[in-house]
């Protein structure tokens, strides 16, 4: 008997709090998403977090100094200082100091017993720290961002810090995660439903306008579902119809980030399950390019479909990630030349994530998709900068590989990333012998070269 009034009261309270919460959600998140405006709440959140992180790191340093321990600082640029000189210069330098040599008369390449030193050192340097292996694991942070996942190097945690961390866990998993999951489901659900509805419209122009609006709205909701704080630069260079947009690839979220600011035609393989449903719905509203698994192998077919799409000025620009795999956002790896052979205008875009708030890199060998998304939704925020670079076109007499490298260099420079010639496919494959032969050629050219220089003088 005693339980009834209490029960009633409890129900009422729950009902009220639910309504309030839902209204807040609607007003502060979904309505702005529809209209594309922002209250600036996320940026305020970001600033507050930064202040807390700095405080946390200072306390750790203080703790370390008190105990007279060396605070282990991770290095983002590698653990050894490599020689900036090239192989050729180095060999010549060593030879000059070893022995001033007489001219060789019969034209054979010179060799010095000291040459091996340079190769030896470079080899051991690669063993200790090489450029490629570290691009496929998450970047290390200089300050601790209160996430256990990046705390491998941070010790000396005082009681206050641990409590702060505990509070952080509560906030992230208790408040932010459910909120974000709700938003994600809302966003995806709306996308599927609304694009299907738009797909029924016969009128071409109205259909395009509505489809653009629907796509943008749903992507904006997804952006808020991840608490992504994105800064767009140079929006005047945004990709236009009939062009191809290329960007560096760090995670599947890249798509959401770019698509929430402009409308693109996506390119990809047909998946099954939930992804398949989304893909089918999206293609009803506007023409995306989905390939069957068998078609992917046929390069001519792929190229033809892409170029057909590009020639039609009424269709949206294509979004492609030429690296082919996820890299950890400290470098840009080799671009596959397929999309650069088509001959359309290329709009490069550089995406740089700020790792302090949450590491967006998807290490596909370590985490599956669902685990990855959960990790994303339980970090503080995803903060990134997007730069739209001026459009580029293939010049006369330039081949696709050269053009691809030019675009890659522009993206790397703008995003502050290291420009590497290595293939992202090296994540899983071995290095081709071609590279070894290149080095041998370089060395023998050095030998012959020095001789030729001397004979001329």
């Amino acid at each position, binding site marked *: 008997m005693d339980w009834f009034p209490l029960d009633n009261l409890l129900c009422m309270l729950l009902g009220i709090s639910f309504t309030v919460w839902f209204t807040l959600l609607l007003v502060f998140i979904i309505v702005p998403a529809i209209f594309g405006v922002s209250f600036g709440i996320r940026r305020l959140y970001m600033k507050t977090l930064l202040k807390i992180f700095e405080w946390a790191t200072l306390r750790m340093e203080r703790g370390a100094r008190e105990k007279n321990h060396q605070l*282990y600082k991770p290095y983002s640029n590698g*653990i050894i200082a490599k020689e900036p000189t090239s192989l050729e210069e*180095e060999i010549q330098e060593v030879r000059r100091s070893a022995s001033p040599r007489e001219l060789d008369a019969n034209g054979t390449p010179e060799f010095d017993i*000291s040459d091996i030193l340079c190769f030896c050192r470079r080899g051991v340097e690669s063993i200790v720290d090489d450029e490629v292996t570290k691009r496929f694991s998450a970047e290390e942070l200089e300050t601790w961002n209160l996430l256990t996942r990046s705390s491998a190097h941070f010790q000396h945690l005082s009681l206050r810090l641990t409590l702060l961390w505990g509070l952080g866990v509560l906030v992230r998993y208790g408040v932010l995660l459910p909120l974000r999951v709700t938003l994600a489901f809302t966003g995806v659900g709306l996308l599927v439903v609304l694009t299907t509805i738009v797909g029924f419209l016969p009128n071409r122009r109205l259909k395009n306008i509505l489809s653009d609006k629907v796509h943008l709205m749903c992507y904006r909701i997804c952006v808020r579902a991840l608490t992504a704080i994105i800064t767009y630069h140079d929006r005047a260079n945004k990709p236009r119809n009939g062009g191809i947009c290329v960007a560096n690839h760090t995670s599947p979220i890249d798509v959401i980030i770019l698509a929430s600011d402009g409308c693109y035609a996506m390119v990809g393989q047909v998946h099954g399950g939930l992804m398949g449903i989304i893909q089918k719905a999206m293609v009803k509203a506007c023409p995306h390019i989905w390939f069957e698994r068998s078609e992917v192998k046929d390069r001519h077919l792929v190229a033809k479909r892409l170029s057909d799409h590009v020639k039609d000025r009424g269709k949206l620009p294509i979004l492609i990630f030429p690296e082919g795999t996820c890299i950890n956002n400290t470098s840009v790896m080799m671009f596959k030349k397929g999309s650069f052979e088509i001959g359309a205008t290329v709009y490069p875009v550089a995406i740089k994530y700020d790792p302090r708030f949450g590491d967006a890199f998807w290490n596909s060998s370590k985490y599956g998709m669902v685990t990855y998304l959960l990790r994303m939704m339980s970090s503080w925020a995803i903060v990134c900068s997007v730069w739209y670079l001026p459009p580029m076109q293939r010049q006369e007499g330039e081949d696709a590989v050269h053009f691809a490298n030019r675009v890659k260099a522009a993206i790397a420079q703008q995003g502050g990333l290291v420009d590497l010639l290595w293939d992202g496919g090296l994540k899983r494959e071995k290095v081709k012998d071609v590279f*070894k032969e*290149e*080095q041998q050629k370089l060395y023998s050219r050095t030998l012959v070269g020095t001789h030729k220089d001397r004979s001329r003088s």
Partner: protein
Amino acid sequence: MIMFFSSPSDVKNNGHRRFFPYCHIILIPRGVSGHESGGITTFFARRFHHVTDHSCAIIMGSGDSTLSKIPNVEELMEETGFSPAHVVRLYERFQALDKSKKGQLSRKDFESIKELATNPIRDRIIGAFFAQGQEMVDFHTFVRILAHFRPVDKNRPKKANMQEPVNSRTSKLRFAFQLYDQDNDGKISRNELLQVLRTMLEMQVTDEQLESIADRTIQEADLDGDNAISFDEFRKSLEKVNIDHKMSIRFLR
């Protein structure tokens, strides 16, 4: 101190304090070393792992827990002269290379380093890590070999009966000498020199050119006329080269 968060179901009152219904906080005195507290965490993790996928634990140790994971680390630092920070760094690199988590590196692990694959003398360098007949390299050997490349300590006092330090000029030269002298007989024969030249130049020069280079090199360096280069002759021909600069790897900080 270890904090352990788990989800509702199996909440047992096993003598630890309960601050929240769904959270256990186990207090362990600070004197416990990192190794032991790691063991305790594993103990609890195993008992609670079925409960939730997102439980998390944080260990507060009283110092660097990575260093304590390495056996005989004091000895290693004494022998090689690496600082604790460097040893930790090398340990992480060792673990990153040891993809199958065996605790030791095989030749395959070295061969998977992409940048190393372009080096013509890659196989010889890798061979330097593996002693005669050995198939695996443990962390100590790894660090000892890399210690050859530490910059020379200029201010070391000279003791009469002290062993040659691992990173002295002589040791570095000996390392380079052994890259040439694969059969370890103390001399670089003409054949051995030819082999090295072949791996470094491969298709780029003809066999006759290779042979004439080898002959000329031996002629220049050989002082006692035995048609082979001994270690002393090797050292003499490189006496003007700044070995410390060329055969040292500079660690940042």
